[in-house]
């Protein structure tokens, strides 16, 4: 099937089988490999992308189901080579180690801060409570959310 995806502002026309996952389409058809797949059943959150601005698990969506929609992946967060406030806060706070789960956190938090630009620490924890990280123990990720909100 032919699908039109608008990813990070760029339109792509792509021919995919109906069963192709959005995560696989982004990664292997469009070669935007910043979106990672950690569990393929929607629990870890590594594959989170923004669909019309809202965070979704791209491993739980079929590419054909998002025809015509706007998608933001981690590759679309920086502007003109400048890190977004969330990305910069992760670097400043040592919010990543192996970096595999990081894109899902970055997209989740980007959307979360749009909805709640000035979170309390409890709200910051709530914001990331659906994403798994096996390296950092989350301490510095929480710090990064707070810092991104108040750079």
């Amino acid at each position, binding site marked *: 099937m032919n699908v039109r995806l608008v990813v990070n502002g760029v339109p792509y026309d792509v021919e995919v089988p109906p069963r192709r996952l959005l995560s696989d389409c982004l990664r292997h058809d469009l070669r935007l490999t910043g979106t990672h*797949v*950690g569990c393929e059943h929607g629990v870890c959150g590594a594959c989170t992308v923004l669909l019309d601005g809202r965070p979704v698990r791209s491993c739980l969506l079929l590419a054909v189901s998002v025809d015509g929609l706007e998608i933001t992946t981690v590759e679309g967060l920086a502007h003109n080579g400048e890190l977004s406030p969330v990305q910069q806060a992760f670097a400043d706070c040592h919010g990543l180690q192996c970096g595999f789960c990081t894109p899902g956190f970055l997209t989740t938090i980007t959307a979360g801060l749009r909805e709640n630009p000035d979170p309390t620490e409890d709200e910051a924890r709530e914001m990331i409570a659906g994403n798994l990280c096996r*390296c950092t123990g989350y301490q510095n990720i929480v710090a990064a959310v707070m810092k991104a909100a108040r750079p």
Partner: protein
Amino acid sequence: MTKMFGAPIPRREDRRFLTGGAAFLDDLGHDALAVALVRSPHAHARVVDIDVSGALDVDGLIAIYTYDDLTGALAEPLPLLIPHPALTHGRTAHALARDEVNHVGEPVAMVVAKDRYLAEDAAERIAVTYEPLPAVVGIEAARHADHLVHDDVPGNVAANYTQAYGDVDAAIASAPHRLSLDLAVERSASTPLETRGVLAEWDTESARLRVWSSTQTATGLRAAIAAKLGLDLTNVEVITPDIGGGFGVKIVHPWPEELLVPMAARALGRPVKFTEDRAEHFVAAAHERAQLHHVEVGFDDEGRILGLDVRFWHDHGAYTPYGLIVPIVTSTQLLGPYKPGAYRVEFDSLYTNTVIVTPYRGAGRPQGAFVMERTVDAIARDLGLDRAAVREANFIQPDEMPFDFGLTFQDGRPLRYDSGDYPATLEKLKKLVGWDSFEAVREAARAEGRRVGIGLACYVEGTGVGPYEGGHVLIETSGKVKVATGLTTQGQGHQTVFAQIVADELGVPISDVEVVTGDTRRFPYAVGTFASRAAVMSGSAIALAARNVREKALRVAADALEADTEDLEIVEGVVRVKGNPGAEIALGTVAVLSNPLRYAFDEASQAATQFVVGDPGKPPVADDDEPGLEGRDYYSPPHATFANGMHAVIVETDPDTAEIRILKYAVVHDCGKLINPRIVEGQIHGGVAQGVGGALYERMAYDEDGQLQNASFMDFLMPYVTEVPRGIDIDHLETPSPLNPLGVKGAGEAGVIPSAAVFASAIEDAEGIPITSMPISPSELFELRETATSARTDSRRHSEDQR
């Protein structure tokens, strides 16, 4: 120049991870053929027949392999990587099952197709006929040996091993007090967010193989592939891309897929890739932790341990590719910071029809710490003494270092602690957590109807085991410094910490230093990343290599500046004569001068041709010299260096629901000199979180048939942010190691080691019920309460009856 060693600088590798520019294994090889494995659905069965005919018409199918397609060394069992004299009945699997499967998930056939979807379609249509056999699941069943995992291994025992010093029987028999304990730890697993994966390309014309793998050892894998595929080592390259966590599981090599994928790439002449999915990772990678312990201990009135006798049973799963490393680590590191008067430890390493057990962060130490710390707590309870005081009474003192137990550690070297100050560590921890004022906290909570408890636990960790690592440092004519070491990186920040070391050693800006790890093309001699060894081993080797380069740079610069090397310093990448401004030469220019040229290709090289450089009466490169400004060196330690630490936790247990909440978590940690405190603290945070998982949530729920009931992230409960402590208070000691040039000790595993012990201690303190098995869930704690209540009622009835 600001000193980089010891500075908490931000990581230099972060940008690519933050922008989607990193390259993990599955980010490579988009056009490669894809692999799917047919895996055993049975824990124990004979493979009677494999019928592939149903798969042959699947669109996009390229090839199907079964055991019968394996030839030469590839048809032999997989390597037993770490043999040991006590491992009398070691067994390893075949890359594809030959006639028997011994755990759910064992690979039986491999499909290669145009993409993974099609490969899975074909795999589903391969019909394997099995004759199921009785499954041996759990340590009790293995020990009982009603059924055998391997017909030729009596009692399911792969190894029985004892180490001892002193006369433990006499010491316990003559002790004023004696206790015995039975303790248990269940299975968990490394569970990195990135699963395993391997990509191989065969170059038909040059007969060379290039392999990318998400492995913790590029050089080990390279040697294994060469041996198993019958290739010359020089014709095999292994490259590690960015790796999404390892925590031990990726040190196992070669995984079946790491041989089968290169085999297929060579046979088909096309790139082939395997990316493991999450369900596969649960049943086809490795687990750890499960052990049962029986302890007999004799002690005096102050709680000093006079004799400690430990008998334990270790579940190593279906095969023993990684030898006895985990139980040997348990049996030696169990001792922690203490010096029992006499000690004996004996273990059986047992086969079960479950996934193999190989090191997971901590590698047998969490179990050892759990057993030792439970024992010390039991002694304190028995004598009515403060738990911290009993620990103090048993500590090895700083003036007893180096302390040699007379036992052999996992590396075959003496168990010999090099340095550490345990009393000072405990002092810091007591302050950090508020140990001495906790009774007031308990009373205040009790007044509110709340139940709280405090626990502490100590550990010593042998880190930085040999045999060796190496480093290569090259200064280019641009002044850029290229550093390579052979071991691999899974998120530890090596591109930052190794650059910090080099920047200081050479006197160059850190922005000029670039570090490459885990690429056999850049550095072919290495061991791997495990046992908290990277900073100790490669850090030291890189420092030594940088010192060689510095020495040569000063020699060449001294010639050019007509000065003595002693009068030179290197600042910001420029060699200059101290106190003589203007008399200086950039390191890049020194690199130019160190390589006499015949051909000039730019202005810099014009200055270095053999026609303008050097004494025309002598050879352009002296007999004992080499062209270029580079150095290579190796670090090989006499034995491991022993880091230590202590954790304390305050928990609240809900009187009704038995929910366990963490109120405070404190860590005091001594890993010698800190290269980058920010990165070390990050390692501790991550270790503590994994420890929380291991203590309160994570277990591998096998049923009696050997089916893993919770093989998904839905059911295997890794901590989210909601489960980890809100804030971890950390304090450091820096007791340098005398064994290496940097004075460093390993830090990677530390955070996870005392977790089961410290939570058991705190929950027991809150509840007043002995905690002898970890992990512990709210429902298990609830059960323990019920049992304890009915036991109390029974004993009251009993004493009333007697009256």
